[in-house]
């Protein structure tokens, strides 16, 4: 006679068929589920990146809007190839240049005064388009600014050129090397 242990241990009973269907679905479902979170994760990463990019753009645009670059020609900002000492000189020169341009009084006087603060008495050094140092005469400063569309127009050179144009167009004398002195003389009289 079999013992209780043997009887119960070896007891078998056929389960309902529906259980296999559920098990099969769950096994195959488990494989599908493995990919879902990955897709979801990729979508989350993509959305997060897009959101981060938008936020970064908003922040950058806000920063530039509230703190625009006041002086794009500022050598301290644009020049990378210069030593700190050279940069310092250029900053001073730039300040001198700016004060020359903006001064309502006689440019020549202002130039000589401002440049005297500079390291170089004859020239001021400004930052070129590529950030390279460029030495210019203080007299040329107003011309540079006239070429800069963003700055307010500086009438000094424009007035001079306009007057020269007017003199040359209205004068009956044919400009030759012999009477050019006369034109200059006349221009000087007109300015005065």
């Amino acid at each position, binding site marked *: *006679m*079999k*013992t*209780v*242990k043997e*009887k*119960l*241990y*070896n*007891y*078998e*009973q*056929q*389960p*309902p068929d529906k*259980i*296999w269907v*559920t*098990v*099969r679905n*769950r*096994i195959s479902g*488990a*494989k599908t589920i493995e990919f879902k979170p990955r897709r979801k994760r990729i979508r989350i990463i993509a959305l997060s990146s897009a959101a981060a990019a938008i936020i970064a753009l908003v922040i950058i645009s806000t920063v530039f809007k509230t703190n625009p670059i006041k002086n794009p020609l500022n050598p301290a900002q644009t020049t990378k190839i210069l030593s700190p000492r050279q940069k310092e000189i250029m900053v001073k020169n730039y300040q001198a240049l700016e004060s020359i341009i903006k001064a309502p009084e006689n440019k020549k006087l202002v130039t000589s005064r401002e440049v005297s603060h500079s390291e170089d008495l004859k020239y001021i050094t400004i930052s070129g388009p590529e950030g390279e140092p460029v030495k210019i005469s203080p007299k040329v400063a107003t011309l540079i600014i006239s070429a800069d569309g963003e700055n307010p127009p500086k009438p000094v050179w424009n007035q001079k050129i306009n007057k020269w144009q007017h003199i040359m167009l209205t004068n009956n004398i044919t400009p030759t090397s012999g009477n050019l002195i006369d034109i200059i003389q006349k221009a000087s009289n007109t300015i005065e």
Partner: protein
Amino acid sequence: MNDQSNHTVSENDLITGCIEGNPKSQRELYDRFASKMYGVCLRYAGNTNDANDLLQEGFVKVFNNLEKFRGEGSFEGWVRRIFINTCIEQFRKKAKSYNIGEAHENIVEDPGLDALDTLAVKDLLKIINQLSPGYKTIFNLYVVEGYSHKEIAEMLNISEGTSKSQLARAKGVLKNILETKFKNINK
């Protein structure tokens, strides 16, 4: 010996097929163990619905963990262990309502249950299912599966003494059920 080795080889193929996701292998593995494991589930569960759930849960675990079977011991033993663990897990979830605890630690005299041997399996199952889930689990683990009280204590997070007393009480309840049953038959 030869038959056994052939059987082992085909079992290995079956396992490999299931790991590769072959539906035929999966069905064959299910068919091979479904009846035996349903028997296990019926012993631990209180009703067929719970047994169905345990069988389903157990097979899902078997298929999902096949790669972990290293061939140490029999495959059937490994599968059976998964099902028993699943049943214990279920028991643990409901353990609070089953009121199994250290309060019952006093040892009860072990009543003889030779009468149980005379019963048919289905009658045995009916009687065992009359036990409370706590008694039934310990009775199954000790008497049927052959675990020691120490192992049962570790499995159920109880003391060894509690396991012993619970088993003795389970046997006492079974004895009462059997006495009532035989009295009714004699009448």
